[in-house]
């Protein structure tokens, strides 16, 4: 019982269905295998068919005109073209129909080329198959309804998640076009990874020199709103109209009041020092030291044998101590820890009458070190070694600080873990000195709701955790450092002022750079991280530039496929860098010969010689694999986009839609999509900006009508469908006890339609009735229950 017939089905006024069938020869592509004339004869005899014709090339101008003429002449209200795949020419014929005044969705394509004439040589059977395909289309098209492409308005405001170079580039492009941008950055400052680099390959221009102006423009742009130290908490809505919650972390500094004078961190007594804590593994004491690294904590398991109880402050001052007592005063009065006591022994001779006593109250804040006028006190880490490489920071080494002195916004934040106030309630120095009264220790997390029309994800990359790769010695040997650690070591604002020094403060005489650590390795990441070859070459150059030193590159293949990259590789060869073709297998400090004494030994096969080599060096730089950000999966779910096998965000098409995603209105750029260097990240940021501006400029977004519609008179409200939708287009209306579909979110997969036990959901263009009719046509039961 079809009660809706002749209503919205585009039937002629008397309800008659008039189908025109057009069979294409496609030159000989179809006609050689399918008897086209026979198919036309067959089509003529099918119910509802008013006219059937064949033509050499249906997709040609005259072919289309033929259809258009017939629509008028024969009063056709349905069209079937039997030709190539609909993926090829469906848009063409839909357009032709529309131009002739027929709703384009009253058209159906029968694919008798790709899936018929081309895949068999048996002409009678190919003809037979073509007939079935045509009959299925004729049967189906009778039930087609007029559909309209829907337009949704697009909010001009753009959300960019991630303030690295890709996000900054996109933000500037969009903002320069006059459109408002909200730039959300998780760290306290924008700039991303690039802000920690000293130089960039292959041009060797200073990263800060090219990045800082962009950061500043972004910070000052009237169309860009930066939300740093903030994260996207949730996203709802759809293309054109997203509702986004931004969670602003507790910075303890009011960015509206702060003028960036820096007094707070100059006055802060707490030095960021490595922290360690004792944990037990099955009753056995292990130390897990966690070090501050670019604002992120990392863990290093230190093996037994390094088990000395760590003393954050040396308990015996060196000979430099003049027993002035400043440290003890600071500890008691500023820190409130009372960990240092200055003892006076009146009876003893002058000079020896004073002594310092340390007790267990030390919280490791480092205030005493800062107060010490002679440098007699030092901070050491869990292994009693001087903090150098593991103190990887670019900004002030304080509990309240900015990540770099070029921070944008130039607003400090308080690191709760090291701040004395947050450890024992004392201090409060920064609040006292701040002329703007911007510091507030009881600041709460804030949630901000914004509405945007499109979203760009540019969250960048992480590097692989090196601790589990014991054979390379990272976390075990002082002078084995990661690529990112080397960048900071090299950076003019770093702890060594840009000098390349070993952990003991002396310059290395030889450095090994190990490629492919965790990349191209099925135990970790199968992908090539793409940037390591080039930055490793850059490292070699920087080392050679700054220290007199031998440099060894242990590589599998040098992949230098970018503009000027191969030339850079050549240049490094000229600079006498030693290239050893062979992946390093292990780094050990165990000498097997006198020249290895006191050195790190890199073991690798020189595969060009077929010889095993042990190369003693002073410093080893590892090039760890780039991997997806921790939490990428969660963000992908929030946004309704996918992650690929390696965890990077999935683009809509790897070649043709590299910055679009499966979710309309959501774009990706930079290394969050796959490992990328700066030029590629910038290019993608700009490309995404262009995509977004084009969407904004059009003002509306067209939604295909192949969406789910719910017949509320049939829906019983069982809610089986709700979770079927990957796009959250379906929701339950509690009041009316029915499911409702937000068609702007629906992508038209039809999964809910197949799931609905009540038959209450239909997919426009793929209704149950249409598919059933198609089946009947395909199987020759057309007469039984077609449009009649």
């Amino acid at each position, binding site marked *: 019982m079809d009660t809706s017939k002749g209503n919205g089905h585009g039937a002629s006024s008397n309800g008659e269905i008039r189908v025109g069938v057009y069979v294409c020869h496609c030159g000989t592509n179809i006609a050689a295998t399918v008897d086209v004339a026979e198919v036309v004869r067959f089509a003529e005899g099918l119910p509802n068919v008013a006219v059937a014709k064949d033509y050499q090339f249906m997709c040609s101008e005259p072919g289309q005109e033929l259809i258009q003429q017939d629509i008028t002449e024969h009063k056709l209200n349905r069209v079937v073209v039997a030709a190539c795949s609909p993926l090829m020419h469906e848009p063409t014929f839909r357009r032709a129909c529309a131009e002739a005044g027929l709703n384009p969705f009253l058209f159906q394509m029968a694919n008798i080329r790709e899936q018929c004439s081309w895949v068999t040589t048996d002409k009678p059977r190919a003809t037979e198959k073509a007939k079935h395909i045509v009959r299925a289309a004729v049967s189906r098209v009778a039930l087609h309804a007029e559909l309209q492409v829907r337009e949704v308005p697009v909010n001009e405001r753009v959300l960019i998640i991630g303030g690295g170079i890709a996000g900054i580039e996109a933000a500037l492009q969009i903002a320069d076009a006059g459109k408002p941008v909200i730039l959300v950055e998780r760290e306290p400052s924008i700039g991303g990874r690039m802000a920690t680099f000293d130089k960039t390959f292959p041009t060797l221009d200073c990263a800060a020199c090219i990045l800082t102006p962009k950061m500043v423009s972004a910070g000052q742009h009237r169309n860009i709103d930066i939300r740093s130290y903030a994260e996207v908490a949730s996203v709802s809505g759809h293309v054109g109209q997203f509702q986004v919650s931004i969670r602003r972390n507790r910075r303890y500094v009011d960015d509206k009041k702060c003028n960036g004078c820096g007094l707070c961190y100059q006055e802060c007594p707490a030095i960021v020092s490595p922290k360690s804590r004792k944990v037990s593994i*099955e*009753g056995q004491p292990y130390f897990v030291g966690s070090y501050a690294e670019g604002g992120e904590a990392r863990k290093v398991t230190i*093996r*037994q*044998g*390094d088990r000395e109880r760590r003393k954050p402050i040396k308990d015996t001052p060196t000979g430099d101590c003049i027993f002035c007592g400043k440290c003890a005063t600071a500890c008691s009065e500023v820190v409130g820890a009372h960990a240092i006591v200055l003892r006076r022994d009146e009876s003893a001779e002058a000079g020896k009458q004073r002594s310092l006593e340390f007790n267990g109250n030390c919280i490791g804040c480092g205030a005493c070190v800062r107060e010490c006028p002679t440098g007699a006190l030092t901070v050491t880490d869990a292994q009693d070694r001087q903090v150098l490489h593991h103190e990887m920071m670019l900004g002030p080494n304080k509990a309240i600080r900015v990540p770099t002195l070029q921070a944008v916004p130039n607003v400090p934040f308080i690191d709760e873990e090291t701040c004395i106030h947050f450890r024992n309630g004392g201090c409060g120095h920064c609040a006292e000195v701040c002329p703007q009264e911007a510091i507030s220790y009881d600041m709460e997390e804030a949630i901000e709701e914004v509405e945007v029309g499109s979203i760009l994800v540019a969250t960048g990359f992480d590097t692989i955790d090196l601790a589990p790769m*014991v*054979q390379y010695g990272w976390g075990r040997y002082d002078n084995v450092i990661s690529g990112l650690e080397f960048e900071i070591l090299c950076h003019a604002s770093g702890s060594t002022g840009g000098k390349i020094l070993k952990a003991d403060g002396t310059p290395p005489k030889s450095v090994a750079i190990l490629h492919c650590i965790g990349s191209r390795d099925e135990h970790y990441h199968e992908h090539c991280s793409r940037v390591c070859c080039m930055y490793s070459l850059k490292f070699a150059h920087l080392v050679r530039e700054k220290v007199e030193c031998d440099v060894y590159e242990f590589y599998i293949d040098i992949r230098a496929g970018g503009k000027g990259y191969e030339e850079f590789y050549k240049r490094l060869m000229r600079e006498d860098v030693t290239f050893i073709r062979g992946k390093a297998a292990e780094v050990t400090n*165990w000498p097997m010969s006198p020249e290895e004494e006191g050195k790190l030994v890199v073991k690798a096969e020189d595969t060009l010689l077929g010889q095993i080599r042990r190369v003693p060096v002073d410093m080893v730089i590892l090039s760890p694999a780039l991997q997806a950000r921790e939490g990428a999966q969660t963000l992908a779910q929030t946004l309704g986009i996918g992650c690929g096998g390696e965890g990077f965000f999935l683009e809509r098409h790897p070649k043709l839609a590299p910055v679009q995603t499966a979710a309309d209105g959501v774009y990706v750029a930079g290394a969050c999509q796959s490992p990328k260097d700066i030029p590629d990240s910038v290019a993608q940021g700009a490309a995404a900006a262009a995509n977004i501006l084009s969407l904004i400029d059009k003002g509306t977004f067209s939604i295909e009508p192949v969406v789910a519609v719910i017949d509320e008179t049939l829906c019983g409200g069982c809610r089986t469908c709700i979770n079927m939708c990957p796009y959250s287009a379906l929701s339950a209306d509690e009041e009316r006890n029915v499911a409702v579909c937000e068609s702007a979110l629906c992508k038209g997969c039809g999964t809910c339609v197949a799931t609905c036990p009540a038959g209450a959901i239909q997919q426009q263009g793929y209704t149950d009735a249409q598919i059933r009719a198609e089946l009947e046509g395909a199987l020759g039961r057309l007469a039984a229950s077609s449009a009649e």
Partner: protein
Amino acid sequence: MNYLFYPGCALEASSPHYYKSCRLSCEKVGIQLDELEDWTCCGATAYVGTDEVKATAYSARNLALAERAGATDLVTACNACYITLRKSDKFFTNETMRHDASEALQAAGLAYDGTVRVRHIAEVLLNDVGPARIKESITTPLDGLKVACYHGCLLTRPFTDIGDPEQPDIMDRVLAPTGAEMVDFPATAKCCGGMLMTTRREVGLALVYEILSCARAMKADVVAVACPLCSVNLEAYQDAIGQVYDWDRPMPIVLFTQLLALAQGASAEDVGLDQCMIRPEFLMERFA
């Protein structure tokens, strides 16, 4: 707790003190080792180089026997036996190999369904007993003793599920409750050379020298091992090493279970310290 135990040829012949101390230290933590009835040689690392299917079938005979005895675990104390039996078990996951080896087993009226878990005694002590219970069993702590735990290659290679393949610490964690100090020992999983000591002596000596000199540099009093072959290779050739390398002060090699049993109250004689080729005199005196 009872475990089905597979001693292997070496434990029977060259390392009776290992077998003895194994039983002793296990008893102290409530474990009884029941020897697998009429076991066959596992094939070690040699047989598989001649005929892989036969090697698999031979060693799987032991697994089949264990399965028939209703055991879920088959425990061994020899690294080579451990790995060979485990590999045979794993090979049964390959269609062709399982087919061929099963056919051979069938001819002997046996079948293996892949239900037996092959375990090493060190790992059983660590995971099934645990440091806490070991700690309870300690009566005469080994305070002051510096031990280098030598795991050898096969304990965590190629199967890395029981410990790190580069720097395992299974033995360290088992012995730590004894009160002895476990020194950092980078060479803990380096290879002792295995059969090369017989066929290519110069290569074998170099490998053992690397391990021993590392232990010396780490100031170990004694090297503890968990494998009868490692034990022989490390102790029997120290004279020969001295002829090639700078090696004059011999390093005593003990089985880790000897140390454990001593700490649990056994005497030097009980654990067969006198069967060590390089006698740890200081221990023999202390636990006389």
